[in-house]
């Protein structure tokens, strides 16, 4: 009968020596490669966080435990604090497991503010890659581990030194080539990171911390570049177009510069300035949130409550004093009736209120939509938000793939941002005219430098004309007052769904209209009464 094989006993010193030799081998191998992110991978595999290297990119963030699981946070392993980053997990021959991320997003003043995130990872044979966007606020510490059954198969951590809010400039090129050096003038305050085609995610939400992509790889991924451009990155083809293979150059649509969503694709050298003006969708959303999306319900007037309570006490005292047994029973009955009346009068209609706002940046036939959700709670509660939501103000929360739970004190509001996504633009701008592409009309239209415009019917065409400043609904007016200063001349602002306040989207096409041409073509036109009232700067009211 065959006997089961058993591992031969190993002395402790032998095991330790083997581990040390193995670690040295890994370090020497990766150092010989001389590529920044992989240095970080080796360090992370050894259980330590990477450290910045002189003059080169900051090492990446990867954990590799016996090649069974690998975690990469940020494109090319570069984390951008205060931005959306991709979290890519690659497992091999691993059963269903869980990725656990623990962040401390507190400050020296606030102390520890823990954020706990758990994502279920699909298991199975072969290599399984899963990727999802995650907003990473500036952090004091970040650690992760992959838990399978009752053991941890990979782990790693980042210290606060890696909480870098500078955006990255992705350099898509073949490995081994030197990074361009003449980018600092055009791309200030960015970090150049070398990436390969497989490093580029296809989800626009992953490019929140990307300022631009310099493409000098002969076979760039079209989908990844499109996602980057829609997300707001400036994609620059630095080589002659004949250098590239595949469909990536189709992003240019035959032009030297083409706006796509919130970003653009253009041709030029690594140090040449992008021809399209860039707008920061996150900044626009933050500006729009200057007005609350929900307001707490107004309480019953204090005077009414106090006078009613006083009257009740007087009546009860009189009944008890002079009413005898009948008075006592009447007073008790009155107490019950007054209790019911007080409850129905002073009780707010609901314990929680929710408001949404979306800002869509239109470029070409695509748009990048960034959304915010605000919830207000009257009792202390744990507010549920959609998956991947992230609060604007760093605070404690926990998240799974099913949703985000934020514990909230009584009578407080929480505003979260949702991952940006690419959508079909509701209108296009061609020949200085706005054409609606959806079944819903465009309302509250405004062109920076021209003034308010007439509404655009579904599928209709509207040619902007110079007009006097217009007045809108108080809420739209307040939103535009906060957005217009951030936009270049010729930018189009319009809304859909704001009539009900439930699903309001502000669409912005930056610098889409040639203001001078529009003025010359039509001259000043007097619009209906609503457009002749100056845009007020005070008195906006948010919906209740």
């Amino acid at each position, binding site marked *: 009968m065959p006997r089961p094989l058993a591992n031969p006993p190993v002395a402790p010193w032998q095991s330790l020596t083997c581990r040390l030799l193995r670690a040295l081998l890994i370090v020497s191998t990766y150092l010989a490669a001389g590529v920044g992110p992989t240095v970080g991978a080796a360090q992370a595999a050894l259980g330590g966080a990477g450290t910045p290297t002189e003059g080169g990119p900051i090492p990446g963030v990867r954990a590799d435990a016996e090649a069974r699981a690998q975690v990469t946070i940020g494109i090319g392993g570069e984390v951008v604090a205060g931005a959306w980053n991709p979290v890519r997990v690659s497992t091999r021959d691993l059963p269903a497991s869980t990725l656990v991320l623990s962040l401390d997003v507190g400050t020296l003043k606030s102390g520890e503010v823990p954020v706990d995130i758990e994502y279920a990872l699909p298991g199975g044979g072969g290599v399984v890659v899963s990727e999802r966007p995650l907003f990473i606020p500036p952090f004091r510490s970040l650690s992760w581990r992959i838990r399978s059954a009752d053991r941890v198969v990979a782990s790693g951590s980042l210290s606060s030194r890696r909480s870098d809010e500078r955006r990255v400039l992705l350099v898509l090129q073949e490995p081994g080539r030197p990074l361009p050096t003449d980018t600092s003038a055009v791309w200030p305050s960015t970090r150049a990171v070398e990436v390969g085609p497989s490093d580029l995610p296809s989800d626009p939400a992953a490019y929140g911390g990307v300022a631009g992509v310099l493409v000098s790889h002969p076979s760039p991924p079209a989908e990844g570049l499109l996602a980057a451009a829609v997300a707001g990155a400036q994609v620059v083809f630095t080589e002659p177009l004949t250098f590239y293979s595949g469909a990536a150059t189709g992003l240019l649509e035959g032009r030297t510069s083409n706006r796509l969503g919130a970003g653009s694709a253009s041709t030029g050298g690594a140090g040449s300035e992008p021809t399209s003006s860039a707008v920061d969708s996150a900044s626009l959303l933050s500006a729009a949130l200057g007005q609350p999306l929900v*307001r707490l319900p107004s309480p019953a007037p204090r005077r009414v409550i*106090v006078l009613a309570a006083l009257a009740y006490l007087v009546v009860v*005292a009189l009944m008890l004093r002079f009413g005898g*047994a009948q008075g006592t029973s009447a007073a008790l009955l009155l107490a019950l009736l007054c209790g019911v009346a007080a409850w129905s009068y002073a009780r707010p209609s609901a314990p929680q209120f929710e408001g949404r706002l979306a800002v869509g940046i239109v470029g070409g036939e695509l748009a990048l939509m960034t959304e915010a959700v605000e919830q207000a709670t009257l009792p202390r509660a744990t507010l549920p938000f959609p998956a991947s939501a992230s609060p604007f103000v760093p605070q404690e929360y926990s998240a799974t793939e099913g949703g985000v739970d934020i514990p909230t004190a009584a009578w407080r509001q929480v505003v979260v941002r949702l991952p940006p996504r690419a959508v079909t633009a509701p209108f296009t701008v061609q020949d200085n005219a706005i054409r609606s592409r959806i079944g819903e009309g465009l309302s509250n239209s405004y062109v920076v430098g021209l003034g308010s415009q007439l509404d655009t019917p579904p599928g209709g065409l509207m040619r902007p004309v110079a007009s006097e400043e217009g007045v809108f609904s108080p809420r739209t007016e307040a939103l535009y007052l906060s957005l217009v200063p951030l936009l270049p001349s010729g930018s189009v602002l319009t809304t859909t769904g704001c009539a009900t306040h439930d699903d309001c989207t502000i669409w912005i096409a930056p610098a889409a209209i040639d203001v001078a041409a529009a003025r010359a073509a039509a001259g000043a036109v007097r619009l209906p009464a609503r457009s002749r009232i100056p845009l007020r700067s005070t008195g906006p009211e948010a919906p209740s």
Partner: protein
Amino acid sequence: MNRFAGLSERLRSPDIAQATLLLGLILLAVLAVGWPGGDSRVNDSWSILAPVRNAALALLGAGFGAQQAVRRAGRQGAQLTLLALVAVVVLTWPLELAAQAGSYPALPWYWTAVVPLLTLSGFFGAGTLLGTAVRGPYAGLLAVVAIPALFALLVWFDLAMGRSLANPWTAAGAVSLPYALLMLAMTLPWVWILLPRRGRDPRRGREGDDA
């Protein structure tokens, strides 16, 4: 005189009437101060009013429990006093309901309805015990000292334990099963005294009913 007429008489008696009026005015003042005015929308009035009411009911319960024991009011007198105090709980409930409705606290409705009764009955029992203990010469003076001492002891006990176990102030704002159990345990003295038992003269102690 039936039980309801007796309750009415007891509610009209000066001590209960003054206590009821004083409690109502205190709650009215708390409501007036705590209710939001002007542009404020945050209604936090219940978080003050409920502890005040619960603590005041505890004081009333302990005080009148001790009074009944010191004066040897007997079973019927104690029963009427306890019923009158329950009536006070009912009569002051609308004020708390208004604050609770406006504040929308994250508490189940049953707790806010039950905890004043638990507090009252528990502290009435504790007061009965205290009154029995200090019965004799200077009983009134001793009771005046013993009741605040009891409260101080319970507050200290809660602070030492770090939980809401016996403090009526904190128990109003959070569901606490230990508090409920403790109040039920403290109820036992008056249950022992007030419930009729076989072989016992039901009219025993009647001379103190008008205390």
